[in-house]
């Protein structure tokens, strides 16, 4: 999957954050809506769409959306 496609998928996990706020270099932990529940959504996405298990610790180490892309799509 291409990075821009992943960024759009990542943005889909948010209910209130405008997708325009979410780019590849977005520091997602700083977004107002980011919480452990959004983290669950990303973990579920990794599992369902990519068949990949992502732990809370791995997600916490990621700074940007691109880091998550590398983690899940590597």
């Amino acid at each position, binding site marked *: 999957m291409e990075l821009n496609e992943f960024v759009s998928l990542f943005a889909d996990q948010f*209910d209130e954050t405008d997708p325009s706020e979410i780019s590849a270099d977005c520091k997602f932990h700083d977004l107002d809506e980011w919480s*452990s*529940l959004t*983290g*669950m959504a990303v*973990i*579920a996405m990794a*599992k*369902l769409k990519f068949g990949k*298990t*992502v*732990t*809370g*610790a791995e*997600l*916490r180490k990621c700074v940007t959306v691109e880091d998550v892309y590398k983690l899940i799509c590597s």
Partner: protein
Amino acid sequence: MAYIKALSYYLPNRVVTNEELLQEFPEWSIDKVAAKVGVYSRHLAAEDETAGDLAEIAARKLFEEYNIDPKDIDFILLCTQSSDYILPSTACILQNRLGIPTTAGAFDYNLGCSGCVYGMAMADSFIKSGLAKNVLLLTAETYQKYLHPLDKSNRSIFGDGAAACLISTDGFAEIGEFELGTDGSGANNLIVKTGGARHKRATGRHVEDEDGHIRYDDYLYMNGSAIFNFTLDVVPGLINRILDKNSLNNEDIDLYVFHQANKYMLNTIRKVCTFPKEKFYINLENTGNTVSSTVFIGLKDCINMGNIKSGDIVMISGFGVGLSWGGTILKF
């Protein structure tokens, strides 16, 4: 064959609404959290009310509702992780309090979210082997007492409660073949670390975990992301094995009543398994996650609401602390 002959539950009187929690945590977006986890209020046991007390009331409700004579009970199984004492088993105390004959067997077993299924598996086996004819299976939990006052996430998810189920040689739901499983490597992901023999004394310690939640040694700790991953890894395979063991297909199942962990997790499981919404029971709005009682509470509510009728095939399953899981089929 073993059957469910009677089923009741009891929730303690004290109700804590999300509005009350919001007063304690005014900066918290509890409405948004509630929309995802699906809990709007939960019941809490009183300070002097134990899991044994809740189980006793649930059993008395069962006896009254179904006109059951306690003298006919020949085995008591109590699933709890909040026993009244380190010893003896609370089930022994309940034998006396409920007027069940001294010829009955009784013991507690320590399981959480999978406990209802494990209790049914034991009762089913006791009946098939001839060891017992009328097993009183009780599930009772007071997890709220294990929660740190500042642990708003778990305080919003969990609720206290108890259920009572009579499993017998006849009844309204035939119990099918069981599938069980265990993975102790995940024990630390859902744990009350101190108070048992390994770490008897409270430590007062706390650290931040990988999800950014505070992990207190002396209170219940749940690694949300690890439990979430565990569930997504285990439950789909569990469902397939339950179907295989019972020679059924998903199309044969009229309703899935799974452990009501939280709405978000259940919805994710439903999507993974591509089950239609109307066949997948989700309701913990006014009870929260009552641990070992959620499946019984769900079944009872479905029966009362007419969502389960005679002839229906229902799959039940539980999964969580241990880590432990199990499931079976009920034919109504």
